[in-house]
């Protein structure tokens, strides 16, 4: 296989399996936005074209439709690369991790940042196949380090857990501020 030969070569990217699915989906999405323009933006009276609130969304969506149409045509006229279904299944597999992430988001206001992070790291590590005692210790250590760094040290804004309410006074305010 040749490596880079010309400057133009460096900027080239090539198609991958599933390109048709992506091109088609993006085109449909763009057309949907185009169709929504009348409902979703307003043309204000006595205002110049460039100052219209609808001006930039219309330009952007117009370009999306145009470019995605060309991109779709490019995919349609190109040779099909095998492995389309597997590729789409690969995309769908990532939904599982998105759900893990959202579960973490839902749990933090209830259990507090520290406990939720330890649980999230431990369970997801277990799910990914890191099941030994050493890995569990590593994931717990990582979780505690993240909480201490961001909540205690950098003081980022995160809600205190509901369960902290049940703690004795002295510990409660410490937990709410630092963990």
């Amino acid at each position, binding site marked *: 296989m040749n490596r880079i030969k010309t*400057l133009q070569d460096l900027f080239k990217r090539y198609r991958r399996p599933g390109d048709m699915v992506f091109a088609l989906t993006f085109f449909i999405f763009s057309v949907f936005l185009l169709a929504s323009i009348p409902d979703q933006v307003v043309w204000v009276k006595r205002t110049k074209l460039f100052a219209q609130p609808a001006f930039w969304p219309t330009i952007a969506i117009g370009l999306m439709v145009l470019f995605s149409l060309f991109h779709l045509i490019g995919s349609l006229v190109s040779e099909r690369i095998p492995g389309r279904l597997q590729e789409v299944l690969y995309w769908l597999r990532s939904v599982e991790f998105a759900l893990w992430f959202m579960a973490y988001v839902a749990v933090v206001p209830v259990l507090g940042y520290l406990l939720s992070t330890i649980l999230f790291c431990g369970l997801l590590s277990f799910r990914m196949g890191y099941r030994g005692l050493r890995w569990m210790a590593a994931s717990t250590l990582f979780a505690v380090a993240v909480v201490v760094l961001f909540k205690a040290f950098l003081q*980022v804004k995160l809600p205190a857990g509901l369960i902290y309410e049940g703690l004795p006074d002295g510990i409660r305010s410490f937990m709410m501020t630092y963990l």
Partner: protein
Amino acid sequence: MDTFLSGVELLARFDVALALLIGSVGGVIIGAIPGVGPAVAIAILLPATFSMEPLVGLTMLLGIYGSSMFGGALPAILINTPGTAVNALTTYDGHPMTRSGQALKALGLAYGASFAGGIISIVVLILLSPVLAEIAPMFGSREIFLAALLGIVLVIIAHRGQTFAAGMLAAFGIFLGTVGLEPVKYTQRFTFGQEWLASGVNLIVVVLGLFAISQAFVLLNEPESAPKTQRIRGSMWNALKEVLRYKRVTSAGAGFGVLMGMIPGVGEFTAQFLSYTYAQKTSKDPDLFGKGSPEGLVASESANNAVPAAAMIPLLALGIPGEALTAMMLSVFYVHNVIPGPALFQGKLDFVYALYMAMIVLNVIVIVFMLFSSNLLIRIIRIPTRFLGVMILTLSFVGVYSLRNSASDCAIAAVFGIFGLILKRQNLPIVPIVLGIVLGGIMEVKLRSAMARVKTPLDFVDRPIAALIATAIVVLIVAHIWGVIRERRSREPEMSHDHDVHDSQMR
């Protein structure tokens, strides 16, 4: 000279020094781990820096930006996997050198070239700053609008072979930037009656999704791998000094880095490629390029490390970020109500000098760190990839959620995470979306204020800089179309090229 000294004074503070140290050492480590790059790290840390002073926050982020390429050279050379996107070209010559038993020499050259490239570029820019401060006020609304448009055009045509995709993604970015309640006529744009869309799609949420969460998803989805490496023996100091034998290539690389870094939408890849081509064409041994040429390695590493300093120029002088990392840094300014632009360059030149001095210090910290730490880094880069995925996802949460404690932000970020994964799998670029969001917003505001004084279309380009940028835009588009037509005529089979050179571009 006075402004320069007051810039130095700004830096001489404990918190700034600490931020620099954390940023630079952290950046090296992050750069060295394949699978996490500066974009992921900056996206995660961004909300945490909002509570810091602008200079402290920016030096930390700059530290990560400027030092990650040092770290990224290590896995590129030792295991043929670039640590960050811009080390891809380093693998071409670095890894063959490792295979022929010259790992230490390759690492020394890469670090030395990065250091020299970084320092040369910063010195050039410090010297140029007074000139830029003179030019910056000539940029009014229409010039800034045209410069932002130039950035969009460049980022689209730079993705040759995927121009249409880059175009639709950049347009998508511009569209995303318009969603929500607009601030002039107070109308809703594309909110579909949803309250959570009224405040718009936050740039940081999108960036965290596209860069960090998507990378976590990719790592979690892929089969496990933990790279094997060998220890480095010998004196790194002696290896570093070898770079002095390639002064010409190093300075040319730094020159290309400075020039390309200043133009929005271009960046490291073009700089590296021009530098690499120049080195090859002027080399006594051009056939060795791609097979372990020290000159090739020096050309690539000196160019990429010269870009960060130069990329700060359009950001600070015009408020126009040229690529994803400076786009993220722009939000640090916005949070503190400091709007970068001609006024900043004119009125607060000491702040600009302070940032440049900080970059010099960070290069020194990193090179000293590199002298002793290669073997330590080798141990760190062996983190198994799926565990790394768990770590990135955990850190992404704090990045998104700490912004405004909003679960809908997290959901949007997760959706963009999946979208980013698809783009990465499709070998499509992420940067046009980010630039679209940022530059689209700038274009909207600047066009509105520029058109107030424009009667006929020609008025728009009746000032020299506006005319120059407008001409550049037209020439670039025409040249691009002409280049594509010419390329069609001498077409090579699609599969005869290296398809994976851009694989790591989005980390």
